[in-house]
């Protein structure tokens, strides 16, 4: 019996302030999602299942749909790049930027970019790279890590943000009014937009039939970032393809509602390709980098359903363990339930290091219940626990199960143990043989042992016959 689980240890160290921020942000997200979905749809579950089925279908024919998307995009003058690994993706983007002589750019929020640590890489290579999403911008100022898929600074409160702005000299004296903070960020960012030479975005969806990229944002930053620059690069995970524009009716309706409780995000951009002859502005050059980075391995695994994920964060919001431990506890780009499945798989070489993540769950199933694409997350967590055990990945605080299996398959031994268990009623807690059990009993009392009493009652009562 060694140590405690890493996520448990992390949860013990976070400040009350941080925990309260995470708890408030996530629980209000859950509430809003619930209300908007149940008000707008008689049976939101049917919609979730439909979305899951569309994604599953696409994943089963991913090669075909990617080829279709590539064809449509190329026809519109978009340059397509494929990146097998994170390094390939970084080099592809760096190559594009260098070929266009780009030295400064703005980047809107992209989980794919987070996944490959694009920002620090570009900065290392001498390219000024500014995060234009407010949350990501604050993360960048603080040298922090995002802790939530859609609300990267869910772990911060407005006082911390105001202090950051004061430290960085953005907007003058300390002011923690959210409106003032936002206005100051806006003034600061606007100047930077105009200086940029390229814009990097992700994409929420790529429609295979038209090649159209769809971006859902609330700040309009990706749109603003693209307006004044000649080059647009979209970094897109290969699983973002959907069959047709028609499917957006399902996905856009679910994405905003699941992520932030909005019927639709404030900005939904449909990007056709580079600017056409009769468009007054917008990038003249557009590049799409389709990134694998472990996704085909996930597709071939028995956890392929996780690739349905549309990155809404609803599972993080509802997860009681995420609420207690924060996204940072998961030590990877993706925290919470989705991360507990995706991270150990996606970063295959880190499986052993991240194999504890799937254990940080009571398997309560709330994540599955809110998932807009109906991913059976608890089942996938269980499969990963089995995988870790099969691959002999050492695990902190694991309880050996062989003695239990022996006892539970030896009925007479079991009955004797049950009857004997009553002796526990007279033993002090301190004699519990292992530390976790002593800890457990330190927090809770056990009910009185009644081992074997039911069986005794049953055998002593007069036999009832009904037929």
């Amino acid at each position, binding site marked *: 019996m060694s140590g405690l689980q890493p996520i448990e240890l992390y949860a013990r160290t976070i400040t009350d302030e941080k925990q309260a921020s995470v708890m408030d942000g996530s629980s209000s997200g859950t509430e809003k999602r619930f209300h908007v979905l149940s008000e707008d749809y008689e049976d939101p579950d049917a919609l979730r299942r439909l979305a899951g089925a569309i994604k599953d279908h696409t994943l089963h024919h991913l090669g075909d749909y990617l080829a279709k998307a590539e064809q449509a995009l190329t026809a519109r003058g978009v340059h397509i790049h494929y990146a097998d690994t994170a390094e390939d993706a970084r080099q592809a983007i760096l190559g594009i930027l260098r070929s266009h002589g780009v030295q400064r750019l703005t980047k809107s929020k992209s989980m794919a970019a987070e996944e490959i640590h694009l920002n620090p890489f570009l900065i290392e290579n001498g390219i000024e790279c500014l995060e234009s999403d407010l949350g990501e911008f604050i993360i960048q100022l603080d040298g922090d890590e995002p802790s939530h898929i859609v609300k990267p600074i869910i772990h911060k409160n407005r006082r911390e943000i105001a202090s950051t702005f004061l430290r960085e000299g953005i907007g003058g004296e300390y002011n923690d009014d959210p409106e003032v903070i936002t206005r100051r960020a806006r003034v600061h960012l606007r100047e930077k937009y105009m200086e940029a030479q390229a814009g990097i975005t992700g994409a929420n969806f790529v429609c295979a039939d038209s090649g159209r990229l769809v971006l859902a944002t609330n700040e309009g930053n990706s749109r603003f970032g693209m307006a004044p620059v000649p080059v647009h690069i979209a970094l897109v995970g290969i699983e973002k393809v959907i069959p047709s524009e028609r499917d957006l009716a399902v996905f856009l309706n679910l994405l905003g509602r699941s992520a932030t409780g909005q019927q639709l995000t404030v900005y939904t951009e449909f990007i056709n390709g580079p600017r056409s002859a009769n468009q007054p502005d917008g990038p003249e050059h557009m590049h799409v980098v389709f990134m694998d980075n472990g996704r085909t391995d996930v597709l071939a695994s028995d956890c392929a359903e996780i690739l349905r994920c549309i990155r809404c964060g609803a599972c993080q919001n509802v997860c009681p363990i995420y609420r207690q431990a924060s996204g940072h506890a998961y030590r990877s780009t993706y925290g919470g339930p989705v991360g507990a499945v995706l991270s150990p798989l996606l970063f295959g070489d880190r499986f052993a290091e991240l194999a504890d993540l799937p*254990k940080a769950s009571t398997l309560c199933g709330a994540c599955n219940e809110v998932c807009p694409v109906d991913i059976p997350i608890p089942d996938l967590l269980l499969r990963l626990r089995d995988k870790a055990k099969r691959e002999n990945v050492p695990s902190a605080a694991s309880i050996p*199960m062989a003695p239990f*299996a022996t006892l539970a398959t030896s009925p007479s031994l079991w009955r004797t143990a049950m009857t004997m268990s009553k002796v526990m009623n007279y033993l002090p807690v301190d004699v519990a043989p292992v530390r976790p059990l002593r800890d457990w009993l330190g927090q*809770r009392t056990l009910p009185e042992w009644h081992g074997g009493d039911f069986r005794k009652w049953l055998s002593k009562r007069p036999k*009832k016959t009904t*037929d």
Partner: protein
Amino acid sequence: MSVPTNRPAGKRVLLMGTCLCDAFYDDVARATVEVLEHLGVSVEFPENQTCCGQPAFNSGDWPASRKVARHCAKVFQGDLPVIVPSGSCAAMNFHGNPLQFEKEPDASVDSLAKRTWEVMDFIANGLGVTEWKGGFEKPVRIAFHRSCHSRGSNSGEATLRLLESIKNVEVTVFGQAEQCCGFGGTFSVTFPHISGRMGSLKLDHILESNPDILVSGDMSCLMHLTGLARIQGRGIEHLHAIQILRNSIPGLAPSPA
């Protein structure tokens, strides 16, 4: 998760008593027998039963849990419905087992999956009893904690409907009802801090609704919650939903101690 369709119902059943009732909550198993017999059902209790295997399954030790599941399936073989006073053990039979036997199908395990009912689901949807003709002399406020392993099954709805139909019972409404109590079996041992915080938060919400009794369909949740509550000096009376059904029938209710 979803429950199997076309499960056998009928007036002869096998009782899966659960290890928790075997060790601690004998009266829950007893109430299950008494309520089912009250409904004209004859109940058999296979002596060699032990546990459904869930602790090993959830820990990821599937060879160990498959061994227990095979034993369990053998003990409950045949074609009678298997009734369990626990949403969690029932879900192990009809959801967990199919998952861990995916690559090595086992006919008896499969048969167990197709015959298992959580007891409240069985009463409401197997026997078709949707109103409980019982009652209490004085009004009773019940906080019903919907255990997580009944998500996706009919048990939560069935329990709520039966409880609400009892004379003088009021089911309270409390915040964040969808949140887990934090037990999770071995989770509570390997994540004691998180588990305890989750439990305390759940208790805050439950107690705010000012209930007389805390009720659930899973004694594991109640064991965890009331164990925490007692140490925190805010003990609360707690019963399994099947005990409420039993206690509301004058002839069946245990005489006060």
